[in-house]
């Protein structure tokens, strides 16, 4: 008896589980065969129990699970294929609808894939170093002086490395641009000086040869170089025998010891093709506030950023106590290296990613609207199928298959668009965006596109499917049954979609409008000099050939004389650190001290210039006098300052006649007298305020490395051959580097802003078109559905103007609601974009007034066309249709 009970129990449980498992089959199949299958399963169970007891049941279950696993997917696939065939037939019947939907989705998905590929490659992908998450950028800050993210100096770096405990290794890098001679044209090579363990800290091995050794590091001067793969290929044709051979750089011999791999990414934003060693004796010989070193550290495994920063600041405080003159107020900031490398591009890229997200939402709303409209047209087909017994779930599944197929087509077309979009982006993106050349369609992008396609299909398919699959049968099957609850509900939903679309488009347009205004302001900033027809290039005389100050002084004076005499050149300036090209901040002392601001050592951007610099640049003299040929070695030392500097350090006082001196001069300060005040120039960027600037005459402080700034009468590039000729006559081994017009330089400084403005502009324009098409579609459909009503109205005496007003009012109600909501959303979101704006408030009244007007005008146009058509309704024909 007990065993009979037990087997009855087993049977009961088994059949309950089997019934639950049957739910995995499509409903259609389950309804048809479910009861039969349960009965057959029950029979099997009974028999197996009778024959083999519980063992028989277990064996049956094993077989049954296999049976289910094989047949369930088959049944689903069967239905999917049937639905797909049906969907294709439906699409072919309405090619215009299909094309419109696929184009809208392709634009939305394509823009998303393209921007995602950029964001993923530039911002998200880990840096190509070993355990990149443990690499940090180490920079100085001096809060009392308002200095953040400052480079380090040689002695500070050596002390950091020696005294900190959180790092497995710490390395430094500095800029180095040697001139290669002896093998073809002389060439200035962009490169870097790095501490001996730099490559080891990054965890990168050379492709060939070796990196620097601790033995080399102890020598006073470096003697070896490592080449980049690209430079090795370009200049030496990938010659393996180059290893161990020597190159002539800056007039001296250097041994090539290694070649870096082709995919090696240097840390500096500027490309580098050659590296040499910055030896410990060289580093130790520099001043403590000669801040020219970038420092990168590798944290010990398991070490977190916060404790490591605390550890570094203990070191910084010890240095402050030890060297109060140079290290007072200096602390250390640690930044993850990835953040450091790509952090500045993140905000703009994330805003672009958000924008394309909006664009996709607009495309979804658009297509959902189209589907709703078409769903209304198919109401009768669907009601018929429901009447014939199709379950609602089955209908939803069918409709979702249709939207899924549309989404897949849109996604495929979008991927194609993304491919071309990415190539276009690469062409216009500023070169300093790190890793931009690596952007392409890779696995993450494909995955993203797939996910976007899937979500899109659901997003625009689900609402219409729910809506359409729930018709009131009787209403839909009746002829001419418009104006029922069903159509009211559907038109309300279409109205909501339209409002959402307009609101989203407005947010995008306002974002784009703000960026365009900001870009325009940026472009019209005057840098403090006239950049037109100004040619610039840089010369650096190697110490080996020009060891004596008198030699390079004479070289530049001769060169400037000859260049000035060339036809087409009206002014020849020279500067060690001209605006936008180089910068050199130096602290200085003031004789007698300052009345105000005693807490910070005063500093300024210092440039060594020739007397003609100001006239060549058209920087105006405000007071006092400019440099003259009489300001030379041996005469009293003089300096000029900018207006900004005068206001900053001598507010309400006369700086002319005051005397200043730079530190770093051994022993006695060398006082310079301020003889004049000139106009300020911007130098770090068009969006950066001018800093205090101080000029020193070249003849009193000659430099080996100078930029020439030549004012030309015509096309600046036209004078280049003459300049090359002149230079060759003076020194045939002297290469010209960074030859550009000043306008190109300025253009380059706003390349990033131009790119984000351009992209957001394109997205916003697409959004505007999609929204316009959306409004048009809804209005055209709604007007066509109201033909009967309009006919009645006209028969009862309504004029065409009345009808026009009626239709337009309906459309504009939607558009204005969308604009209202969009304005609120834009006001909320605008501050996100605030960081990208220059001299434009996030709530800029001009943008917030003009953009809604633009959108309203578009909406009006989109309503007007269907409204005009509605007025042409012939009342008699409209009424006869019934």
């Amino acid at each position: 008896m007990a065993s009979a009970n037990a087997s009855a129990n087993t049977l009961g449980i088994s059949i309950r589980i089997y019934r639950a498992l049957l739910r995995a089959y499509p409903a259609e199949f389950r309804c048809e065969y479910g009861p039969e299958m349960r009965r057959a399963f029950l029979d099997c169970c009974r028999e197996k129990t009778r024959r083999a007891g519980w063992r028989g049941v277990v064996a049956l279950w094993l077989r049954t699970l296999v049976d289910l696993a094989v047949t369930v997917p088959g049944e689903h696939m069967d239905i999917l294929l049937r639905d797909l065939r049906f969907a294709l037939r439906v699409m072919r019947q309405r090619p215009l609808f299909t094309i419109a939907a696929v184009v809208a989705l392709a634009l939305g998905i394509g823009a998303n894939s393209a921007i995602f590929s950029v964001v993923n490659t530039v911002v998200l992908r880990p840096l190509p170093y070993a355990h990149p998450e443990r690499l940090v950028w180490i920079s100085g800050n001096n809060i009392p002086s308002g200095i953040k993210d400052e480079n380090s100096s040689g002695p500070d770096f050596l002390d950091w490395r020696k005294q900190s405990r959180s790092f497995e290794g710490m390395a430094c890098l500095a800029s180095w641009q040697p001139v290669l001679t002896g093998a073809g044209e002389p060439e200035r090579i962009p490169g870097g000086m790095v501490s001996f363990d730099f490559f080891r800290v990054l965890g990168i091995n050379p492709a060939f040869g070796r990196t620097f050794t601790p033995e080399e590091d102890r020598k006073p001067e470096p003697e070896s170089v490592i080449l980049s793969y690209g430079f090795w290929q370009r200049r030496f044709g990938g010659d393996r025998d180059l290893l161990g051979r020597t190159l002539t750089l800056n007039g001296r011999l250097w041994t090539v010891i290694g070649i870096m791999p082709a995919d090696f990414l240097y840390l500096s934003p500027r490309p580098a093709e050659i590296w040499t060693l910055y030896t410990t004796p060289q580093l130790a010989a520099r001043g403590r506030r000669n801040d020219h070193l970038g420092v990168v550290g590798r944290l010990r495994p398991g070490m977190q950023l916060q404790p490591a920063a605390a550890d570094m600041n203990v070191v910084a405080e010890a240095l402050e106590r030890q060297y109060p003159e140079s290290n007072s107020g200096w602390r250390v900031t640690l930044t993850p290296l990835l953040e450091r490398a790509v952090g500045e591009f993140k905000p703009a890229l994330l805003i672009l990613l958000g924008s394309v997200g909006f664009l996709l939402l607009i495309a979804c709303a658009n297509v959902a609207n189209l589907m709703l409209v078409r769903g209304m047209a198919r109401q009768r087909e669907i009601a018929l199928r429901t009447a014939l017994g199709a379950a609602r779930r089955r209908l939803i599944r069918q409709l979702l298959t249709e939207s899924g197929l549309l989404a897949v087509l849109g996604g495929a077309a979008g991927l194609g668009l993304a491919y071309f979009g990415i190539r276009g982006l690469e062409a216009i993106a500023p070169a300093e965006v790190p890793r931009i050349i690596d952007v392409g369609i890779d696995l993450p992008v494909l995955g993203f596109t797939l996910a976007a396609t899937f979500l899109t299909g659901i997003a625009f398919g689900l609402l219409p499917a729910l809506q359409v699959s729930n018709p009131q049968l009787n209403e839909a099957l009746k002829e001419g049954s418009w104006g029922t609850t069903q159509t009211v509900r559907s038109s309300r939903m279409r109205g909501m979609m339209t409002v959402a679309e307009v609101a989203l488009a407005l947010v995008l347009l306002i974002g784009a409008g703000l960026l365009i205004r900001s870009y325009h302001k940026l472009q019209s900033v005057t840098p403090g000099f006239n950049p037109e027809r100004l040619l610039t290039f840089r010369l650096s005389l190697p110490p080996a050939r020009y060891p004596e100050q008198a030699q390079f002084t004479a070289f530049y004076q001769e060169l400037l004389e000859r260049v000035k005499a060339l036809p087409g050149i009206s002014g020849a300036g020279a500067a060690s650190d001209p605006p936008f090209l180089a910068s050199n901040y130096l602290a200085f002392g003031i004789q007698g001290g300052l009345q105000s601001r005693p807490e910070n050592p005063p500093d300024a951007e210092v440039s060594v210039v020739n007397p003609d610099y100001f006239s060549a640049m058209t920087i105006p003299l405000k007071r006092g006098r400019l440099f003259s040929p009489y300001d030379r070695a041996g005469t009293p030392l003089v300096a000029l300052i900018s207006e900004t500097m005068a206001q900053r350090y001598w507010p309400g006082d006369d700086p002319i006649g005051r005397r200043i001196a730079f530190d770093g001069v051994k022993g006695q300060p060398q006082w310079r007298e301020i003889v004049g005040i000139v106009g300020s120039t911007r130098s770090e960027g068009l969006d950066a305020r001018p800093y205090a600037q101080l000029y020193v005459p070249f003849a009193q402080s000659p430099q080996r490395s100078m930029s020439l700034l030549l004012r030309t009468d015509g096309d600046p590039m036209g004078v280049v051959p003459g300049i090359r000729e002149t230079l060759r006559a003076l020194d045939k081994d002297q290469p010209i580097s960074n030859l550009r017009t000043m306008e190109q330089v300025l253009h380059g400084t706003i390349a990033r802003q131009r790119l984000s403005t351009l992209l957001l502009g394109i997205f916003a324009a697409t959004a505007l078109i999609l929204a316009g098409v959306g409004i048009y579609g809804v209005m055209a459909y709604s007007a066509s559905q109201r033909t009967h009503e309009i006919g009645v109205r006209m028969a009862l005496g309504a004029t065409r103007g009345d009808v026009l007003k009626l239709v337009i009012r309906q459309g504009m109600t939607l558009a204005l609601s969308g604009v209202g909501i969009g304005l609120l959303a834009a006001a909320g979101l605008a501050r996100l974009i605030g960081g990208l704006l220059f001299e434009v408030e996030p709530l800029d009244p001009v943008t917030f007034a003009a953009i809604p007007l633009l959108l309203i005008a578009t909406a009006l146009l989109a309503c007007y066309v269907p409204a005009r058509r509605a007025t042409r309704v012939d009342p008699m024909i409209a009424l006869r249709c019934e």
Partner: protein
Amino acid sequence: MVRSGRSTGELLPLTPAVFHILLTLADGERHGYSIMQEVEKRSESRISLGPGTLYTAIKRLLADGLIEETDERPDPALDDERRRYYRLTPFGRRVAAAEAGRLESLVSEARSRNLLPA
């Protein structure tokens, strides 16, 4: 869903499971569980149809018009009338015969190559 106008050849070769079902139905109508038992018995337990395999096959056979549902009951006293019974259609009989012929010619081919005793 009955597809008409298909020739017997279009459906060949049949899967073993389908051929067994058709064979089982050749001598009269049966319900699902009875088909499962009979197939298992005849194949000496080498082929054992689960309910899923059986009913997805039945669905397709119905759709292709090889079998049909029947209201007749062989022995009302013995059987549950809630069960569904299936029988071969004339088309299904022709398809089963064609498959049998196909197999037979394969067997004679094997015989002529001395794979089987003559």
